[in-house]
């Protein structure tokens, strides 16, 4: 759905993007994690060409945006929703007026606009605040308006620039849950950037870690968890330092694997440490295990064969 390749962007001496390749599949929630100044916002703003990259190609929904003229680019942007850290709502317009804005830009008629605005406000649970001004809303409500506005034109893609960074933890969770629901119900593809690990864990199917303008690592989260030496896995699911006689195992997708292993290979499995959480609704993480008994070697071989053995006997 989104493919960028070879993106470079420099501001004077500062290289914000230093050769970035990224692919986001249809219906995927993709999170880019990185410290402040890593180039995340620049990357996101290159996807809808708010920022023109010095080099590289941007493809969204089968169109090469970097090859479009100004008018075509404007039309293409109407199909790419964006939400912002500080909401970027029009203070002079009501909630309904803000959601109507992208429809006005597209030239949608008054009646169709009103219908769509009502639908969108229902979707984000703000139907009763249609006549309020942004200044009268809480942060969470403002971001809901931002989301309704971003989705009013039925985009195929939603870009999110630190959409929850200005919100408190409880509100953050409710906004993330909303994004996840929209992803499921509308099949919306979401590319979000954040400096918060928890955001990635809460909603993302795939993730990338960015530093100094480069993507250091990227992939579906279960795969990253099963990748030895993965920096992203270690950041998302930190375990205490390795210890002799213990192995580190990714949880994988089979929830009964360990108990079956204990039964079929005749081993004892003891958990020494673990980091397991719900990621996008399913348990994911890593366990540090001590596997002992006659079949220990065979059990390890099976785990290795399944690609779940991340770290052996350190």
């Amino acid at each position, binding site marked *: 759905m989104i493919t960028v390749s070879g993106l470079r962007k420099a501001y004077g001496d500062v290289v914000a993007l230093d050769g970035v390749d990224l692919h986001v599949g249809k219906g995927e929630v993709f999170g880019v994690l990185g410290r402040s100044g890593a180039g995340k916002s620049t990357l996101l703003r290159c996807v809808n060409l708010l920022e023109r990259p010095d080099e590289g190609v941007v493809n969204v929904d089968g169109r090469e945006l970097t090859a479009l003229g100004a008018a075509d680019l*404007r039309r*293409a*942007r109407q199909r790419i929703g*964006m939400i*912002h850290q500080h909401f970027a709502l029009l203070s*002079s317009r009501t909630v309904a007026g803000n959601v109507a804005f*992208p429809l006005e*830009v*597209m030239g949608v008629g008054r009646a169709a606009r009103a219908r769509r605005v009502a639908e969108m406000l229902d979707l984000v649970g703000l139907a009763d605040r249609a006549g309020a001004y942004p200044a009268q809303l809480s942060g969470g409500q403002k971001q809901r308006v931002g989301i309704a506005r971003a989705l009013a*034109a039925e985009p195929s893609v939603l870009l999110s620039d630190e959409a929850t960074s200005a919100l408190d933890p409880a509100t953050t969770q409710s906004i993330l849950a909303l994004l996840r629901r929209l992803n499921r119900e509308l099949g919306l593809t979401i590319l979000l950037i954040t400096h918060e690990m928890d955001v990635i864990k809460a909603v993302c199917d795939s993730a990338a870690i960015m530093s100094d303008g480069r993507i250091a690592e990227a992939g579906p989260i279960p795969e990253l968890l099963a990748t030895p030496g993965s920096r992203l896995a270690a950041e998302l699911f930190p375990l205490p330092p390795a210890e002799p006689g213990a192995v580190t195992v990714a949880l994988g997708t089979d929830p009964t694997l360990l108990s079956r292993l204990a039964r079929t290979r005749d081993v004892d499995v003891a958990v020494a440490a673990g980091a397991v959480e719900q990621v996008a609704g399913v348990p994911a993480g890593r366990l540090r295990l001590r596997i002992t008994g006659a079949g220990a070697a065979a059990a390890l071989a099976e785990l290795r064969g399944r690609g779940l053995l991340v770290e052996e006997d350190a």
Partner: protein
Amino acid sequence: MTWSEMSPLLWEATGQTAVMVGWSTLFTVLFGLPLGVCLAGTDRGGLFPAPAVRRVLGLVVNVGRSLPFIVLMIAVIPVTRVLTGTTIGTAAAVVPLTIGAVPFFARLVETALREVGRDVVQAAEAMGAGRVTIVARVLLPEALPGLVAGLTVTVVTLISYSAMAGVIGGGGLGDLAVRYGYQRFETTLMVVTVVVLVVVVQLAQTLGDAVARRLSHR
């Protein structure tokens, strides 16, 4: 001088001031608003950056603003003649008043537009809005309270400029104070005129503040 003698003089002068200030306000908005949009838009981070254009506009505006109004009024007499066919009277005074106020108002418009957050403009760009749409539907509506505040200051300035219009026969309250109060030692009329001027300015400011507050949803 009795009240019944002063009254018609005051009414006539107030009417002349209203005509001069009213028309010149209208023309100031007509020319100053687009000029302010150009000043803000042509800046480096603006909607349609054009440093060379901006430098020229900035220079013209600064020259206009640095001329004392009384000098400007005399200096533009040839222009006034071309535009109105005469160089004296209330209508003729509208020309220098407008020329004097346009650069002033344009700067205030520029400032008000700058106050609009960059993120809001970019959000509109991200939604596929073009520049005209952004100016008409984002910048101007978002800046409206600031624009009204700027207009209020401009009107008050125009009232004070219009007091000098007596020099070219424009009449008005200022002229009345000078001709009767100063030249004929009618101190009472002078004081009354000053009071009327203060009240008019106060009314304009209060009204402007109320409208700006009403329009602001921040």
